[in-house]
């Protein structure tokens, strides 16, 4: 296993996530795609840390990625709840305009 191998796995995970985020219509499924992309970022950071600079300072970045995931989930659920309440729908296509 080498850095390149891990990063190719990362790229695969990221692209699967991107496909999901772009193609899914339901907000929660879009969030799953985003999560998958962040999952790839997590793996990439860990791999670069391990193969290039295994000092601990970089691991703090992993915590930041985890925090970013949390923020993404919380805001996503809040927006999904709001959309569902105001429009009885959670499809992204029906939220294309900004009217309340």
């Amino acid at each position, binding site marked *: 296993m080498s850095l390149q191998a891990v990063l190719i796995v990362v790229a695969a*995970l990221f692209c699967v996530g991107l496909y999901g985020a772009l193609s899914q219509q339901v907000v929660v499924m879009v969030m799953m795609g985003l999560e998958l992309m962040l999952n790839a970022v997590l793996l990439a950071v860990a791999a670069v840390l391990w193969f290039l600079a295994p000092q601990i*300072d970089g691991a703090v970045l992993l915590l*930041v990625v985890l925090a970013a995931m949390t923020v993404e989930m919380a805001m996503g659920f809040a927006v999904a709840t709001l959309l569902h309440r105001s429009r009885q729908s959670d499809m992204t296509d029906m939220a294309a305009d900004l009217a309340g």
Partner: protein
Amino acid sequence: MGVLSTVAFWVLAAAAVAFGALVFRVDSMARATYCLAASFVAVAVVLLLFRQDYLGVVTALMMVMEMAIMAVYMVMFMGMNPALMPMSMVHGRRTALALSAGLFIVLTAGILLVPWPSRRDAPVADVTHALGESIMGHKMLVMLTVSPVLFATIVAALVLALPRGRYDRFGDDLRRRPPADPQPGGVGR
């Protein structure tokens, strides 16, 4: 790294990508959600292979928790039969597929062509301890920044998601006690 961890890595990597792809293929919301959880757990175990014990376990913890909640949202919001029925709620599928495949090719080319530097120094012995020292020491500013962001997230998410404000709860003059809630609580009510 030994042969065993290399084999473990490839198995886990395959599992992570396969479960990730299954998220958008299966016909059940519960299955989709828990496929994502499985993908996360596979990545968490890879983190353990990279000696990030604490972060690996915390990732698994957080993600299983998130997915357990996510499943509830999936079932709550997806306006269709949530179990084992064929479901396809996609738009622009071809564009999305082309974009992601293109990006994958570009990324892979980049990964293979970039001359990666070699490792700078040896890993520390006790990563968990060193991480604790780090975030409580000279990297504390990072955590200090993250915490208001998380707090702001809590406030913003509640503002967006809550249907009722304090006037609904406490009345127009904010004097109603106990507050009128559709769901009674367990403390003093």
